[in-house]
């Protein structure tokens, strides 16, 4: 795996070596207990009481490099510079910048989302004409930022990609809608609302899109069960997928 760039290696090192940044790591929420996911049946590995915490949040330092270049100024620095120049509240709006696996992510505070995406679209040095939807992610352990909305952007003019990530707490699941800037996100935001319960303020008609209108709950949240029934096969019973032993 020598082809990885330093950011990624740093993150993997943080994953694999608990000694690295121990204090920082100890503050992270618990990701899992035990070596394996099994809690009831024979885990004889002796690691049953292991506490594994989430890896600390990575944030990149300048220079950001580019999709293939690392350690030197590159495409990602150009994007960051252009955004900084065009969006006056850059410092306040951007929570952190992540460069990972050749991709650039701006973690944006939700109050600034609309302004940032408007700049991304309109500034000639940025010109991200295509928004490729929004994908929700649910991290129940991240108190205060349980729900994430991830927006991939594509610039046809400059042939570049960038990702915007917004977080919000489960108790106040509101994120501004960007349909006014990118009409293509109409259905994508409806889908994310349907599946995660993220409310996109300002969306013209935020209704369910996949599930029936009277459905209760948001199916792709982590606390929502997958469902399924035990299946009997040749005398043995196979439990439904979400109740099987997992090796998470």
């Amino acid at each position: 795996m020598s082809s990885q760039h330093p950011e990624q290696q740093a993150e993997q090192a943080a994953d694999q070596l608990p000694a690295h940044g121990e204090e920082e790591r100890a503050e992270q929420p618990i990701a899992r207990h035990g070596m394996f996911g099994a809690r009831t049946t024979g885990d004889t590995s002796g690691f049953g009481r292991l506490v594994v915490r989430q890896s600390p949040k990575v944030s990149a330092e300048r220079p950001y490099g580019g999709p293939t270049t690392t350690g030197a100024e590159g495409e990602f620095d150009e994007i960051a510079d252009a955004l900084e120049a065009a969006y006056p509240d850059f410092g306040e709006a951007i929570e952190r910048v992540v460069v990972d696996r050749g991709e650039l992510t701006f973690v944006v505070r939700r109050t600034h989302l609309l302004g940032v995406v408007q700049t991304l679209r309109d500034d000639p040095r940025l010109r991200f004409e295509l928004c490729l939807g929004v994908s929700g992610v649910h991290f129940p352990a991240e108190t205060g930022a349980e729900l994430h909305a991830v927006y991939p952007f594509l610039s046809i003019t400059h042939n570049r990609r960038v990702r915007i990530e917004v977080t919000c707490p489960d108790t106040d699941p509101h994120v501004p809608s960007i349909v006014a800037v990118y009409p293509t996100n109409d259905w994508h935001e409806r889908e994310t609302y349907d599946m995660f319960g993220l409310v996109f303020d300002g969306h013209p008609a935020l209704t369910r899109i996949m599930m029936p209108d009277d459905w209760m709950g948001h199916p792709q949240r982590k606390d929502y069960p997958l469902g399924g029934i035990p299946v009997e096969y040749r005398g043995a019973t196979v439990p439904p997928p979400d109740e099987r032993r997992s090796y998470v």
Partner: protein
Amino acid sequence: MSPTQQYDAYGTEEATEGTVFNVAGQDWDEVVQGAQESEDDRLVVNMGPQHPSTHGVLRLILTLDGETVDETRVGIGYLHTGIEKNMEYRTWTQGTTFCTRMDYLAPIFNETSYCLAVEKLLGITDDVPERAQVIRVLMMEINRISSHLVAIATFGLELGATTVMLNGFLEREYALDLFEMIAGLRMNMAYVRPGGVAQDLPPGAIDKIGDFVKRERYRFKQLRKLLDANPVYLARTKNIAYLDLAACMALGVTGPVLRSTGLPWDLRKSQPYCGYETYDFEVATQDTCDVYGRYLVRMQEMDESLKIIEQCLDRLSSGSAKSGPVMIQDKKIGWPAQLALGPDGMGNSPNHIAHIMGQSMEALIHHFKLVTEGFRVPAGQVYASVESPRGELGCHLVSDGGTRPYRAHFRDPSFTNLQAIPAATEGSMIADVIAAVASIDPVMGGVDR
């Protein structure tokens, strides 16, 4: 007409010919106008979810004024199967068997976008063997042809041309025969796996694919003779469902619909993956922005696909990818089971079974661990995309460092492109709605996932 200028029905006004009697006048004009503006003659029609021309379970709610469409609303979700949620409960390798079923006309593209994302997460993109990459490109281009053939065939059927349908599906069957020979299944093959492909090409595959290319080159010409200048076809497709570049960009439309506006945007050229930068092909474009343009783009793309397939065959038979592994050499990731086609389909090869059951305990343990538990993927998130027959198919994957995807989300082009239906149909005739939907070529399995 204001009351002072009212025409007197009883003829106090003298015309040159004498007195004219008619029944106009007074305030009846307003009454008539009011009646014409009334909402009562609007007809709301549910087209679908079960309708032969909606490519699956798509529901269109049309508000009609006579035969003119006033308003189109699109209802989806009838084929939602929770594929993304299900993938969170399976290993990274098992994920391919789920995502292949999304856009069921383009299974190889679903698998490839997912596998490219997994490989990016693992940081092994450059370690995938060349032969595997060439086979992926080969399979994707055969798949592009089979998918476009269905698009053109069903389009013909929906306009009432059964000949187009029969010919299109017939040729697609030849493409599916190739899939069956290579992967063991006609559809939903789960052939592309993280780190490579499930198994090498069987003996004789190169020749058979070569015959397919020769045959299709001739058959595509025939199909074009049938359609390109057919007056009925032109009348149904030219200047229908106009979507220009601004509309496509605002609505996020990609693929043949975007290329029919004249923008040569193709991820195979602009952001190459799987080694597409080393193949010689053109990006097909048209500048008519209509249904006919999209048809021409698809036809040209099929010709270009044949070109790419021939280059793949050269590399696989005599070039740089003539031999070698088709799965990554890292034994911690590469699928341990060597697969082979048996009389009942694809399964573990007898040699592999003999090895793990009779010769090596370590190999058995390794097989068991990797197949049941799977490999771990470092935490993080990536987005990988491929140019599917319908546009940009993106895969957003999040890993928490475990053996299963923490979150898998697919940006399916059909889902996004369907949003353009109201823009393409409102104000048109109801018959053109069918042409508009067919030209966007949505596959509901991909839309609803």
